[in-house]
């Protein structure tokens, strides 16, 4: 069990208050849907958690221990991975090469250390199997569907033994059938004991897969409810401001 706790996180950019006193808990084995209108502070919150921005004030802790990320690599070492909207993958490489990019497996042949393609393929195949995805390690990402690309990006997070995965609009630019595929991937992550934060505009997706929903409006957290205790109507009201607080 891992817990990421945010206490009174604020982030100011000069006079702009992007986040105001946000307190939130993210637990392993749970999918948290993070919703809000454009400019509500979702991306800023993700960037604070991922170590891109240091918060102006407030405290983050993992399993009770205080953490203070200055750079993304520090967040990654603490088990936090981000799957970006514009997927950080290379179209000209194979799925396996992408999964292992920056941390390739090597093997020793005489005096040379060379890339262990077979090892990386096998390990990637295992990861895709765990994700119940039909993506194949040798295929070039250029030839893949949006859903398969997501599988590649998500396999990366499994490889690094991430405990917290933040997903920025993973279903924004793909077809309906592939959305189902991606939502399944998210459930797989959850079932592997990973805490998932799903940032999305798409109400049906969030209600389909999330266990809890948090709503940001103009930098403030206005709701943090179990999915069973709320409805799409209420969430819409919270996002637009028709409902002040829940």
């Amino acid at each position, binding site marked *: 069990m891992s817990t990421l706790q945010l206490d009174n996180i604020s982030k100011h950019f000069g006079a702009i208050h992007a986040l105001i006193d946000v307190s939130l808990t993210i637990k392993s084995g749970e999918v948290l849907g993070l919703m809000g209108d454009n400019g509500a502070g979702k991306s800023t919150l993700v960037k604070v958690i991922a170590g891109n921005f240091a918060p102006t004030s407030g405290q983050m802790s993992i399993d009770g221990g205080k953490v203070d990320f200055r750079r*993304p*690599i520090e967040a*990654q070492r603490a088990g936090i991975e981000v799957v*970006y909207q*514009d*997927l*950080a*993958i*290379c*179209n*000209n*490489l194979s799925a396996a*090469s992408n999964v292992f*990019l*920056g*941390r*390739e497996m*090597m093997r020793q042949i005489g005096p*040379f250390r*060379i*890339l262990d393609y077979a090892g990386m393929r096998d390990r990637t195949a295992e990861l895709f199997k765990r994700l119940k995805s039909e993506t*194949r390690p040798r*295929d070039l990402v250029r*030839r893949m*569907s*949006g859903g398969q690309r997501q599988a590649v990006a998500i396999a*990366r997070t499994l490889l690094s033994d991430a405990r917290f995965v933040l997903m920025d609009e993973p279903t924004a630019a793909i*077809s309906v*059938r592939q959305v189902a595929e991606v939502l399944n991937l998210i459930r797989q992550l959850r079932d592997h004991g990973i805490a998932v934060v799903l940032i999305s505009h798409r109400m049906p997706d969030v209600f389909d897969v999330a266990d809890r929903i948090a709503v940001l409006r103009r930098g403030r957290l206005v709701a943090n409810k179990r999915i069973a205790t709320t409805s799409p109507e209420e969430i819409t009201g919270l996002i637009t401001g028709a409902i002040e607080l829940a």
Partner: protein
Amino acid sequence: MSADTLSEAIDRSEHRSALARITSHQTFWVFLAAVLACLALSLLTDTFASERNLFNVSRNFAFVGIIAIGMTAVIASGGIDLSVGSTVVLSAMVVAVLMSAGQPIWIGVPAALLAAILVGAFNGVLISYAGMPPFVVTLGALSVVRSLAMVLSDNKMIYEFGPDTRLLLSLGGGSTLGLPNPLIVLAILAAITAFLFKWTRWGQHLFAMGGNEQAAQLTGIPVRRLKVSVYIFSAFTAGITGVLEVGWLGGVTTNLGQGMELSVIAAAVIGGANLAGGTGTAFGAIVGALLIEVIRNSLILLGISTFWQGAFVGSFIIIAVAFDRFRSLRSSE
């Protein structure tokens, strides 16, 4: 992309035979064109297949080929290097000036290669750390570096290389086991580069950076250092060519390597390097250089005016890229 085309795409890639995979590469067709041109020339002229002509052709194309390998690395990483022609003359001048002043070859050649490496480091640092566009930086270097070579030699021709003259001339102009030395250097360099591209992190990261630089950065690849290394590599290949050309020509003037960057880029592009980054092979660079030289040679042997050279080489650049474009359009549908 819909589900249908997805499963179709999977079927296609599953049922593709080895032959289909080979023929899907631009390099294969360029290679075929070069081989056919050679065959046709052997039948049409009695001079092409002569030992002397083949020796000359292979040596000429080796010079362009060596740099085209370096250029392929730069292009695959998503950049361009316009300064290679000037780096050739700088490297040639450094070795010529030092040796004509009485220095031995083992000082002259390393110093020339070091000068080339410094040019690459200059390009690389400005491009990666100052974030300047490669086209502009290397265009500036093209001018600066040639000017340095002129200053260094006082714009005079150098044709005396001190005590080690014979060694220097045989390095670039001689042959080993019947093969011209530049050709042997090309083969060794191509083998090493092919290995680096395919089997090392350096190669993997280089292609990743060319495919999606932002992704490479996000995954923690040291993008800046990598970029510097790529420009050093291309300048180094130009340095090698400079040293070899001195030996072949037996003298250096400051117009050596002028406009060579264009033939080199043409060779890399004909050989399958994509200027958008992310693709390219060492073998392709050689094949591209070979095709250009065969075209050049055949026009001379067939008695066609050399004024036509540019038209033929230029058309081949466009045809090779158009061919690749149509192929990728078809496969993305």
